């Protein structure tokens, strides 16, 4: 989706604000939201791509207003409701309905690290790479309304395959529970001037990880 989360190249957000000796969490609730998100993700009702997409679906004005962990909280609530783990009524009352199922056995601290391990995202399946290192490619000019990891600033642009990372889960289908659709993933180098025109420095470049389905022959 062409959401406000796809920020590469936008203007107007001002300078980068750096905080010295920044704490891991600024408020205790941020740590709770982080832990809740990790713990709920571990039940495998959704996947990392669906989780990212749930945050992309936050309305643009809210997305820009919210802090980082407010976005995580909003994204988690959407997933909990969509997947039937919590009802709107339960959220509003703050109490579980008497007939709502409980996680059994409850997750313990000792189990947490192993339980929340995500596994890998590469897949050992046969897939023929469509492109090779050194090959000129064009990022497809596509604008799906669902999840996509091809940034808008690169669509339609010419690049060169730098390397093949191997076969990886394809987020665009995985986020919508339409299968992992594993395919080759490449690092593609785009000259900064191809992306941004003459204002960019001649030697600079941006490397973007791109799946087979994002690319076409140049």
């Amino acid at each position: 989706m062409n959401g406000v989360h796809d920020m590469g190249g936008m203007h107007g957000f001002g300078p980068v604000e750096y905080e010295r000796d920044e704490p891991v969490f600024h408020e205790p609730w941020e740590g709770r939201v982080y832990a809740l998100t990790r713990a709920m993700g571990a039940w495998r009702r959704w996947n990392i791509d669906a989780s990212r997409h749930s945050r992309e679906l936050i309305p643009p004005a809210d997305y820009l207003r919210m802090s980082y962990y407010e976005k995580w909280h909003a994204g988690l609530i959407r997933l909990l409701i969509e997947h039937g783990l919590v009802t709107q009524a339960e959220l509003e009352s703050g109490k579980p309905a008497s007939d709502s199922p409980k996680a059994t056995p409850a997750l313990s601290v000792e189990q947490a690290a192993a339980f929340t391990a995500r596994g890998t995202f590469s897949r050992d399946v046969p897939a023929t790479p469509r492109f090779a290192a050194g090959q000129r490619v064009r990022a497809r000019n596509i604008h799906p309304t669902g999840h996509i990891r091809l940034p808008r600033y690169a669509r339609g642009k010419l690049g060169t395959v730098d390397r093949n990372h191997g076969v990886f889960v394809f987020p665009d289908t995985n986020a919508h529970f339409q299968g992992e659709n594993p395919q080759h993933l490449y690092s593609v180098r785009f000259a900064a001037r191809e992306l941004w025109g003459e204002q960019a420095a001649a030697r600079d470049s941006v490397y973007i990880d791109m799946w087979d389905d994002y690319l076409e022959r140049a």
Partner: protein
Amino acid sequence: MPEGPKALAWAPAPGHVVPIIRLESDPEFKKRLLADASAAISEFGYSGAQGEHMLVVENTPRIHNLVVCTLCSCYPWPVLGLPPVWYKSAPYRSRAVIDPRGVLREFGTELAEHVEVRVWDSTAELRYLVLPERPAGSENTSEEELAALVTRDAMVGVRKVTIEETGGG
């Protein structure tokens, strides 16, 4: 090495990045690190979520690498901890790709015109780490002392490692 569950080792601190600096005395390790960073770094006990597919990119006198995630906040948790607010913020995500030199200048990092800037936009599950250049004047500095100088910011690529006060991180 920090104690505690490795998968949740999130407190970035000097010395947390020891694996990255043990390079000149151990060229075989450097080879392994550049070929398969996740495997090489796991030799030190660092692994887990957001570090399943790590990749190290090396700074040189001619190349400066900078890491961003324009679409969300992808970051190598097991090595650098959870990302700081600035890394996840709209200014950094929007500008790192279109104005990397301007962003670097705000961090006090001035690059000569002949230096090639490579920005890595973390759009997949690859997690990028910058291998900083050995600082000038560090010929007699031990690896332990160097490790203490390597900051989180240097491994994202927004600062260089310096012998003096490195600032932040």
